[in-house]
């Protein structure tokens, strides 16, 4: 059986209420909110966040110890780097073995669905990741209709893990026409007037859906949950009505809450549906992007034993919608603010980053074998007793921590001052001091619980500086068993 082994979405912490836009720019207020990637998130970090959740959910029920992909792909219409693979940073942050192939999949929204279908048709355990940081010119439709998110799907066969949903059928139609496009170097996407795209997409959806049903030997009423998505909202709505054919099977496409995240959106919606699915349900995923792609799946018994945490529903509910529009514009580069009168950080050194890749990307510390003392960053000489070169690597990214003390730095250079900085004590030992993110500087307290997240700490001379930060956990979080984490990570 081949299908989906795990899936998860990453919805950023921040929301922009759409009426904030018209409060500033005028015009008719729109309702709803859109998800906003923080200033320290990009498509790569959001893909990492989703992939960590997907792998953790897959491994939670894994007695043997490791559900591991042999291929990692990254699809984005907003890749942080061009002419350099972004998936290798994701691969490093997930601490995957060197023989796992990490590749990027194109720069258009269709690439995520294309990669998913290819992976399902192949025979290797594949972790598909996708993420976009989307916006448009201030006041325009792309700004209010899109959103930022990441998603990850782990595809494989029985030997790779428990298959939650098996493939019943697929179909793809391709067609060259201009609906939305962004020439190289342009800041924003250009949209053709929407009636034209509608006349192309709706028939494509109908035809591809019928073909997929035939491929799966399914009747139209055999579908229990129908996902129709694509960046052409009007065409999606029209197609959805036609395909649902009056049945109450349409899935909320989440655009009212978080906006349309583009490339990751089909994967995000699939993960969202799987989170609430029960065994033996048929799910149809219809994606309208430069053609139409359809995937038909049927859930298995394993779905009842699988649950990513937090869920997409949970992340949407936890959103913070107090983001001012000016800060949103600043984060997306539409406003260039006066920064603290401090030197900007120098670019990260390529050789130093490469030497320290397990630390910088994987947050792997070292532990003194004789005394157990943890070293963040890893060290050769122990602070506890001075043993030399007697250390073992210890991955810390999944270990929770407690804030021992903290400060708010109004003067330090930051793309979004102030910098909140905390001294952390990890559950089971280990001290590290790092920046906090997704937090309210006025509400941080000594004793607060935090988790570690992979973020963009800065950028200089075109070098994106990825590293880890901490962010507050909900109050209910309890200390993790550090040894349990170690065993699971091998």
């Amino acid at each position, binding site marked *: 059986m081949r299908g989906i082994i795990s899936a998860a979405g990453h919805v950023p912490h921040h929301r922009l209420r759409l009426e904030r836009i018209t409060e500033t720019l005028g015009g008719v207020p729109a309702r709803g909110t859109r998800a906003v990637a923080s200033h320290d998130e990009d498509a790569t970090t959001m893909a990492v966040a989703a992939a960590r959740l997907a792998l953790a959910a897959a491994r939670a029920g894994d007695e043997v110890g490791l559900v591991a992909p042999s291929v990692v792909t990254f699809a984005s219409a907003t890749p942080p780097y061009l002419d350099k693979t972004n998936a290798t940073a994701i691969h490093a942050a997930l601490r995957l073995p060197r023989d796992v192939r990490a590749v990027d999949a194109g720069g258009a929204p269709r690439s995520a669905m294309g990669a998913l279908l290819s992976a399902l048709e192949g025979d290797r355990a594949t972790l598909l990741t996708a993420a976009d940081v989307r916006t448009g010119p201030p006041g325009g439709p792309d700004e209010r209709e899109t959103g930022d998110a990441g998603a990850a799907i782990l595809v494989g066969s029985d030997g790779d893990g428990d298959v939650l949903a098996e493939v019943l059928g697929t179909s793809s139609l391709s067609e060259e026409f201009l609906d939305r496009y962004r020439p190289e170097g342009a800041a924003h996407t250009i949209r053709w007037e929407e009636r034209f795209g509608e006349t192309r997409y709706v028939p494509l959806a109908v035809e591809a859906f019928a073909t997929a049903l035939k491929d799966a030997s399914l009747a139209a009423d055999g579908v229990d949950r129908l996902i129709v998505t694509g960046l052409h909202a009007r065409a999606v709505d029209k197609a959805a009505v036609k395909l649902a054919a009056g049945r109450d099977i349409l899935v909320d496409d989440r655009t009212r809450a978080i906006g349309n995240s583009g490339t990751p959106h089909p994967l995000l919606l699939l993960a969202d549906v799987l989170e609430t699915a029960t065994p033996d349900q048929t799910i149809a995923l219809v994606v309208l992007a430069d053609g139409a792609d359809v995937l038909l799946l049927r859930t298995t018994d394993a779905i009842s034993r699988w649950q990513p945490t937090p869920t997409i529903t949970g992340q949407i509910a936890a959103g913070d919608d107090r983001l001012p529009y000016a800060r949103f514009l600043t984060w997306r580069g539409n406003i260039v603010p006066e920064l603290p009168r401090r030197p900007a950080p120098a670019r990260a050194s390529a050789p130093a980053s490469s030497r320290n890749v397990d630390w910088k990307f994987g947050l792997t510390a070292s532990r003194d074998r004789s005394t157990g003392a943890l070293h963040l960053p890893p060290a050769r000489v122990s602070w506890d007793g001075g043993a030399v070169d007697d250390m073992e690597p210890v991955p810390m990214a999944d270990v929770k921590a407690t804030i021992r*003390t903290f400060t708010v730095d109004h003067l330090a*250079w930051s793309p979004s001052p102030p910098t909140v*900085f905390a001294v952390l004590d990890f559950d089971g030992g280990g001290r590290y001091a790092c920046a906090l993110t997704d937090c309210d500087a006025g509400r941080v307290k000594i004793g607060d619980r935090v988790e570690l997240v992979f973020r963009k700490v800065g950028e200089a001379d075109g070098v994106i500086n990825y590293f880890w930060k901490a962010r507050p956990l909900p109050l209910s979080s309890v200390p993790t068993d550090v040894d349990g984490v170690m065993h699971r990570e091998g």
Partner: protein
Amino acid sequence: MGSHGIKDQVAIIGMGCTPFREHFDKSADDLLVDAVTETWRDAGVTPQDIDAYWLGTAQSGMSGITLAAPLQLDGKPVTRVENYCSSGSEALRQAAYAVACGAYDMAMAVGVEKVKDSGYQGLNAFPIPNDGTARTLTAAAMFSLVAPAYAEKYGVDPDELRRVLAMIAVKNHANGARNPLAQFRREVDVDTVCNAAAVAGQLGIYDCAGVADGAAAAIVVRAEDAHRYTDKPVLIKALSFVAGSGRGLVDPDYDFTHFPECSAAAADAYAQAGITDPRAELALAEVHDCFTPTELVLMEDLGFAERGTAWRDVQKGTFAFDGELPVNPDGGLKAFGHPVGASGLRMHYEVFRQLQGRAEDRQLATTATRSKGLVHNLGGYPGEMVSFVSILGTEPG
């Protein structure tokens, strides 16, 4: 094996110090010429008399040529040293040891920093290529971690501690107001300090050292030669230095309420100088008050107060100009200003002048009965710092 020190073997015979200011009209070269020529005059020596030079600067120049070129020192050994904010003290330590071991008859220690040409606020470290994972916090933020930790550990009400910290700034501003060389010569009150613009954590702008340009220098000779140059030589009784291992940043037992590097350096210095009760024996102490919580904690690390009690001594005025043990009577880093590489020698300049009885209308009452003074100079941050302590005195033994 042991730290034996060079008690009473080396004496300072002359010192100089420029005003610490935003010297937009002076270069590092100008400041060096001002401080060095003043020091030559103070000791009554010529450039030809000096056999070797040590220059402390954090980032205002590289190599001994930084000093040799502006002073046109011809054929002399000049060594540039750097040890964060204690670079000036490090220069003195090297010069004193060179004389003590007999390598040279007369050596000069110089410290300089030209901070205000950068155009940035605060102090900035020269970036060394790295993997991008290092902290980019300001020093203010790192030291601001101390106040809440201290309040919690010793059960001090945070608002009361806030006012205690303000009293330290008020004291140092009052001292600076009396000192013509100091950067800030205006007194402030507790409310002004407490209500100032936030910099980091609880700390506002008045909790931070002044950022200034400046230079200072000292000339040392063997103690037995000192009276050839001055009637009032000041003996070096102890020099200690500790470079921290950074353990506080990785060891969960470190609680940010003390600086182990400083207490270790103090213990070594007291052993060298034979001091057992610093609070009673010292006429004054110049300490590294880069931020107000730093001075608070140093009172305990240097043994002037028991752990958890220095805040009460601050309230009682123990460390005021006319207090039991005057601390930073020249205004300290807070009001005198902090040109990184010059600060250590500026601290020695104040102790030197006070012990010589040359402080004029700022002469401390304590110097009538006590003959020793202490300099404490640190660099770095809580958890990861270097610390220097010296003891100077006018009486042998």
